[in-house]
């Protein structure tokens, strides 16, 4: 536990009438994590349908970096091995400007923006991906995503990505290979199940 928290009139170890601010869910549970010990080009989480009767949504936290020195690549995601039916809409802040790109015919789900290997060492690109009704057999799969990176350029992304498929998600593949890249060692993917 934290040993001290302070401001000008607080005393440690004294209980204050307090109320937790904001809303951090207590209904999120860690399913799996991969923190790459070495460079590799794909990461796959399989057999996710074992959680279908327990969790309603999935949340994915990523912090990724490409190994090769090509341009910053998209964090490319595929569900169940499918290479079709993906689309996105994006509000993007980049270097003083705002863009609103979209693509209605993608072969991957766009999950974020990964800085390339020539970026300053230590720079990784985070993504927080929330997939509602991930195990539904009647709904397409929508992902609400906060992402970006501060490297060669400075990006802040508010992204909505969609897989037009009613199949329950059983497998999630993260790929850098589709851009000819590798994820560098230290790249991290964590999947959480969210109960209703």
């Amino acid at each position, binding site marked *: 536990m934290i040993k001290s928290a302070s401001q000008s009139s607080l005393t440690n170890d004294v209980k204050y009438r307090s109320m937790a*601010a904001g809303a951090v869910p207590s209904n999120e*549970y860690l*399913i799996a994590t991969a923190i790459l010990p070495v460079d590799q080009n794909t990461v796959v989480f399989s057999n996710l349908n074992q959680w279908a009767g327990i969790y309603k949504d999935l949340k994915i936290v990523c*912090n990724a970096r490409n190994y090769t020195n090509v341009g910053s690549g998209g964090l490319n995601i595929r569900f169940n091995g499918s290479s079709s039916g993906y689309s996105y809409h994006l509000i*993007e802040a980049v270097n003083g400007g705002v863009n609103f790109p979209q693509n209605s015919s993608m072969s991957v789900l766009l999950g974020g923006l990964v800085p390339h290997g020539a970026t300053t060492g230590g720079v990784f690109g985070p993504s*927080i991906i929330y997939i509602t009704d991930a195990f539904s057999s009647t709904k397409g799969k929508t992902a609400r995503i906060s992402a970006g990176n*501060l490297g060669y350029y400075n990006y*802040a992304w508010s992204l909505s990505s969609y897989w037009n498929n009613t199949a329950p998600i059983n497998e999630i593949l993260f790929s850098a290979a589709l851009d000819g890249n590798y994820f560098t060692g*230290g790249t991290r993917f964590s999947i959480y199940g969210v109960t209703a």
Partner: protein
Amino acid sequence: MALQATTALANITLQATASSVTFNSIPNTYRDLILTVTGSITGSQGNNRLYFNNDFTEGNYLYCRLLGDGTNVGTEAAANATVSDFTTGRNQAVIEIIDYSADNKFKNRIARGDNLSSTVIYYMSRWSSNAPVTSITYNATNGGSWAAGTSFALYGRIA
């Protein structure tokens, strides 16, 4: 069932105005930190800055911001530790600090907040240090103070 992801670590509700709030001795047993804030500012508004490990050198931080205020959409990037822009009205922010305990990465901060009467703001921010985060100082800055009643709650998330 899998492990519950988040654990409450500490929370503060201010009984009086304060220029800053600090959480010390943060354990390294989690992977991410989540800081939620609800409240307001007295005095000058905006440019609330989040510092790690008593590093108050602004050049060691960087942000890119996206905001909408009901009329305009705006963006800004700068080298300082700003993660929110609280006003004298009602505000809230959720700041996620990704891989805070890692020793081989800069520390990314994703901050989503709003002034409940006018503006929604999204900050992508980072601290350019590989050091694990052991303390957090959140300054109201710009000459203002956190108002009495403002609440700060810190959570750890496992990975």
